[in-house]
Structures are given as structure tokens and as C-alpha cells.
């Protein structure tokens, strides 16, 4: 009974962790992209450096969502509390 409760809680919390992290990461990526587009519209000649900075920033923001994915994977497939 205890084990089943732990499994249910870990599946629900895995889903919630991905949902919240996905929400935050999508919000941040949208903000970064919109300001990069504004900068691009103001200075079209700086396209290369803006694109590079944008891609690096997006990759670093995305790693937050991926940490949440890692936690969700550990909770579902390799849960340390269910032996």
C-alpha cells in the first residue's frame, strides 16, 4: 500500500515538475526571442552576433526544462524510494 502511494505521488509530481518547468522555460524563451527580434529590427546588420547570442541563450534556458525532464525520468524509471 505504501509503495503504491509513493508511486502515485512520484508520477504526479513528475508530471507537475515538467509542466511547471516547461511553462517557465517557454515564457523565458519567448521573452528572449522577442527581444532578439526587436534588436534585429533595429540593427539588421548585427544579424550574426544576435543570432549566435540568441542560440546560446536559448540553449542555456532550455537546460532548465531538461533538468526537470531528468528529475521526471528519475522519478518514473529509476525511483530511489521504490525498491
Amino acid at each position, binding site marked *: 500500500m505504501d509503495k503504491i502511494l509513493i508511486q502515485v505521488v512520484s508520477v504526479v509530481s513528475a508530471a507537475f515538475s515538467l509542466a511547471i518547468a516547461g511553462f517557465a522555460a517557454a515564457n523565458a524563451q519567448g521573452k528572449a526571442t522577442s527581444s532578439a527580434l526587436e534588436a534585429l529590427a533595429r540593427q539588421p546588420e548585427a544579424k550574426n552576433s544576435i543570432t*549566435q547570442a540568441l*542560440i*546560446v541563450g536559448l*540553449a542555456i534556458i532550455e537546460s532548465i526544462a*531538461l533538468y526537470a*525532464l*531528468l528529475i521526471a525520468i528519475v522519478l518514473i524509471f*529509476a525511483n530511489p524510494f521504490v525498491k
Partner: protein
Amino acid sequence: MIQIGDHVKWSFLTLSFNVDTIISSIFVSLIIVFLALLAKIFLLKKAKTISSSQAFLEVFYLFSANIVTGVMGEKGKKYVPFVSTLFIFILFSNIFGLMPITEIEELFFGKIIHRIIFLESPTYDLNTTVALAICSFFAVQYYGIKANGLKYFKRFISPNFLFLPLNLLEELSRPMSLAIRLFGNAFGKAAILAIFVSLVVFPIFYPVPIMALGLFIAFLQAYIFSLLTSFYIYSAVSEEGH
């Protein structure tokens, strides 16, 4: 249906190896070596008329070399071989995982679903991506020490020695995030494909848009991995530390 540790295991003296990952990475390496040999034999250094394959390869080389030289300018030319190798290996191994080979039927919660077996991409295993990230980590330290000597270690205690744990944490979280980013994207693509395929009865043209998205992700992740590596190399070899 889709499992993380779903690899063919082979154990040897208390060590266990994921045989399918090893075989597929050897295959990817053989493909790259074969293409490189073809390029070396058939491409000309001074051609009067440029054939289309030569033009394609020149554009490809310029793109992969520009990853470093775009970040650090002309002096980044000596880091082109390492970063381009990372780029080409990750690109080929990501694309390798998009090749469907067979289709099986499977019972899933009392319902028959179809499942397409794809070739095993080397980056679908966390061990491969961690190995690549460790390569990048040690290469950054090596290039930094080679460029700056013992002054390189000053960047760990800048602005003062109180920041030593923070700097160490930053340095160590880089390979971790590189590895997890690459593995998470490969895994996410595989999971989406598996779920998409299992939705319909006869999946033949249906998963093609997701596979196109997978091609895009494959390219983008290889680009990001090598671009971040060249950023780290740049911050290690530049004089002022950060």
C-alpha cells in the same frame, strides 16, 4: 513501451557495457571515416570547374569551421579540428537514429499497438553524451593551461578566493548540462516518435513530419554542443579569465 535503460547489456568483469550503443557508434565512426576517405580521394585542391559535391563539402566545411572562428576570430583556427569533430560526430549520430528498420506489433495495456524500431542512435544513451561532455571539459582545461600556463588557475579565484566554490560549481555544471541537453533532446525525439506512431493503425507516412522535426533537432543540437564548447574554450584561453 519506451524505456530509458532499454539497452542490450553485456557484462565483463563486473563492468557492464551497452552493446548496441557501442556497435552503433562504431558504425557512425566507420561512415564518417568512409565519407572522409571518399572526400580525400575524389576532391581536388585546385579544380577549374567545381562539381556540386565539392561545392557542398566546401560549404559544409566552412560552416563547421565558422563555429569556432565566428566566436573567437582568426586565432580560433587551431581549435577547428576538435570542435568540427564534435559537430560532425554528433550530427551523424543524431541522424543515424532517424533510420527506421522494422515494425513490430506490441500489446500495451490490452491494446495492440504498432511500434517502429529505429536504428539505435549513439546519443540516445546517456553514457555517450557524458563521454562527449567529458571530452569537451578536459579539452577546455587543456587548451586553457596550454594558452595561459599556471595563470589559467587564477580564473577559479577571481575576483577573490571566496568565489572558489562558486567558480568550481560553474565549471563542473557545464559538462553536466551539455550531456543532459544532448541526451534529453535525443530522448524526447524518440519518445514523441514512439507515441506518435502508436496512435494510428498503420503508420507509414504519418510520422514523417515528426522525423523532419527530428532532423532539425539533430542539426541544432550538434550546432549548440559545438558552439558552447567553443565558447568555453574562448573563455578559458582569453587572458582576462571570463
